C-alpha cells in the first residue's frame, strides 16, 4: 500500500486510475445487462400467440410504445416511441430478431445486438402487433421464396448491382460496408446479414432508412439486390486489410500515420549512435 501511495504522483497514475475505473464500470454493466437478458427467458404459455405477444409487449415494449402500441409522444414534441399500429409483422421481425429492439438506451440509433427474444416470442409479438390493426396489417414477413437468391442468373445479379448502386450505395457504401449518416446515426454494414432481414429492411424502412415497397422495387428486384450483396460477401480480397473499402482517405490516413511513423522510427534508429 505504501508502495502504491508513493507512486500516486507518477505521470501514469491518472491513466492507471482511469483504466481501473473504466474496467470496473464495464464489468458491472455487462453483469447487469446479462442479468436483464436472463429475465426474458422463454416461458411455457398455454394461451394463444396473440395473448402471449400482448404479455411480452406489455412487459418489454409498452414503456416506450404505449400500452396499446399507440406510441408515446411527449408534450415537448419528442417521441419516446413511435406508434406501432399498422407497421406490420415484417417490421417487428426486423427490429426484434436483430436485437435492435428492445432499445438498451435512447440515442441517435438503435444498434444491432444479441436478440432478447426467441424466434417463437418474436412471432408472438408480431402476431400481437398485426392484431392491433386488422384492416391494414402492414407488410407481412417475407416468405423464403421471396428472398431466395440461389437461382439468379448473371444478368439478374448485374441488375441487382445496378439497383444497389442507384438505391443503396449512397448510405451503405459501394461494397456494403455501411457508412456514417448525420448526428451520430449510421447505415450499418450489410455483410453477413440474413437475406430475410435485408428484405424486411427494404420493405419497412427502419430508423433513418427510407421505404422501398414491393410496388416500386418489385420482389425480383429485391431478390437481385440481395443476391448482389451476398456476392459481395464472397468476393476475395487479394490485397488484405480492406479498411472498410472506404477509399483513398482511409488509405492515406493509414500511410500518413502508420507508414510515416514506421519510417521515422527507422530513421531514428539509423541516427542513434551505437554503444
Amino acid at each position, binding site marked *: 500500500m505504501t508502495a502504491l501511495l508513493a507512486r500516486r504522483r507518477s505521470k501514469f497514475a491518472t491513466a492507471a486510475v482511469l483504466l481501473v475505473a473504466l474496467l470496473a464500470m464495464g464489468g458491472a454493466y455487462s453483469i447487469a445487462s446479462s442479468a436483464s437478458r436472463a429475465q426474458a427467458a422463454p416461458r411455457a404459455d398455454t394461451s394463444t400467440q396473440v395473448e402471449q405477444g400482448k404479455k411480452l409487449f406489455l412487459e418489454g415494449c409498452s414503456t416506450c410504445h404505449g400500452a396499446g402500441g399507440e406510441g408515446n409522444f411527449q408534450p415537448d414534441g419528442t417521441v419516446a416511441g413511435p406508434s406501432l399500429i399498422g407497421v406490420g409483422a415484417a417490421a417487428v421481425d426486423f427490429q426484434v430478431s436483430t436485437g435492435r429492439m428492445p432499445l438498451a438506451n435512447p440515442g441517435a440509433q438503435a444498434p444491432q445486438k444479441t436478440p432478447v427474444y426467441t424466434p417463437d416470442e418474436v412471432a408472438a409479438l408480431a402476431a400481437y402487433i398485426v392484431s392491433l390493426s386488422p384492416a391494414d396489417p402492414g407488410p407481412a414477413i417475407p416468405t423464403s421464396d421471396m428472398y431466395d437468391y440461389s437461382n439468379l442468373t448473371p444478368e439478374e445479379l448485374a441488375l441487382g448491382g445496378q439497383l444497389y448502386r*442507384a438505391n443503396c450505395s449512397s448510405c451503405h457504401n459501394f461494397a456494403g460496408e455501411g457508412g456514417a449518416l448525420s448526428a451520430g446515426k449510421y447505415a450499418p454494414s450489410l455483410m453477413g446479414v440474413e437475406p430475410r432481414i435485408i428484405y424486411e429492411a427494404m420493405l419497412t424502412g427502419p430508423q433513418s432508412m427510407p421505404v422501398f415497397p414491393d410496388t416500386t422495387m418489385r420482389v425480383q428486384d429485391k431478390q437481385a439486390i440481395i443476391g448482389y450483396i451476398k456476392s459481395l460477401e464472397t468476393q476475395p480480397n487479394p490485397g488484405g486489410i480492406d479498411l472498410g473499402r472506404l477509399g483513398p482517405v482511409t488509405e492515406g490516413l493509414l500511410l500518413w500515420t502508420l507508414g510515416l511513423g514506421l519510417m521515422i522510427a527507422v530513421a531514428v534508429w539509423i541516427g542513434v549512435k551505437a554503444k
Partner: protein
Amino acid sequence: MSIEHSSHSEDLPPHVPRRADTDPRAAKRAERQVGLLFIASSLATVGFIVAFVFISTEDLLDLPFFGNVSASNFALGLFMGVALFAIGAGAIHWAKKLMSDVEVINERHPEGSDDESRAAALAEYERGRDESGFTRRPFIRNSLLLSLALAGIPAVVLLRDLGPLPGTVLRHTMWTEDMRILTAETLQPIRPGDLEIGTLVSGVPEGIDLVLEEEGNLNELAKSPVILVRMDPTDIKAEQGPADDPWGYQGILCFSKICTHVGCPISLYEQQTHHLLCPCHQSTFDLTDAANVIFGPAARALPQLAISVDTDGYLVARGDFTQPVGPSFWERG
C-alpha cells in the same frame, strides 16, 4: 572530397569507443548479426522465387487481421519485403557497430568560383556571341525570335477542340409535359398509391433507354435523374412553385438527383428527418422546406420537378425543370 583532420578537433567531445571497439567478443557477435541479416535476405530472395513459381494465384489464405488474402500476393510481398529490409538493416548495423566511428571535422569550401574562372567564362560567352553574329545580323535574330514565339501557338489552337460552347444544353433536360416518371434501372411507371409514406424512389424520364441507345449520349442520363419521396403532407413546410399550386402531389415530392454543388448523384435520404445528404461533400437539403440547403458547400436548393398524374393514373412531369439542374456554371447567372 578530402577529409581534413583539422586542428579544430579540440572542439569535439572526447571520442567514446563502442563495445565492439574494445571487446573482441562483442565485435564477433556484431559480425555474426550482420552476416545473418544478409543471409536472411538471401533466403527471402530464394523464397520469393519459390513462392512465385509454386503458389497459385488462385489460392486464398485466411489470416487474422489481414482477412482472406491471396496467398501468392502475401508470400511475394512478405519475401520481397524481408529481402530488401534485411540488406538495409544489415548495412546500417554494420556501419554502426563495426565501421570506424571516429569523429572528424570536414571544413566547407567557399561557394562560388574564383575571379579567374568567372572572367574566363565571360570571355567565352562574348566570343561565342561575336562569332555567331547574333547581334550583328538582326534579320536572323528577329526571325528566330518570331519562329520561337509562333511555335507555342499550336498548343493554344488545340484548346479549340474543347468547344463548341454548350449553348443551352445545360439549361434544359429531356423532361416535358406529361412525360411519365419511371423507376431507375427497371423502368416501371409509378402510381401514387405505390408509394407509402417514407418511400424513396430513384426515377428517370420515360424514354431514357431510347436516348441512351444513341451512341455516347450520356448527357441526358447525367441531367434528368430525379428522386421521389413521399411524406406526410402535414410535414411539408414549403414547396417550390406557386403557393396556390405547389409542385408536389399528395405529399409526393420530386427533386433533381444531381447535387447543386458539383453534381454528385444524391440519394442519401434520412426518412425521419427528411434530410437529403450528398455523399460526396455532405451538403444537406431539407426536403420539407423546398429542399433548401441547411448544411454543406451547396449554394442552391435542389430544383423541384412539378408532378401530376396522367389519365391512366401514373405519375408524370408537368414540364421541364424551371432552372438549370446540377452545379453552377459560368453563364448561369
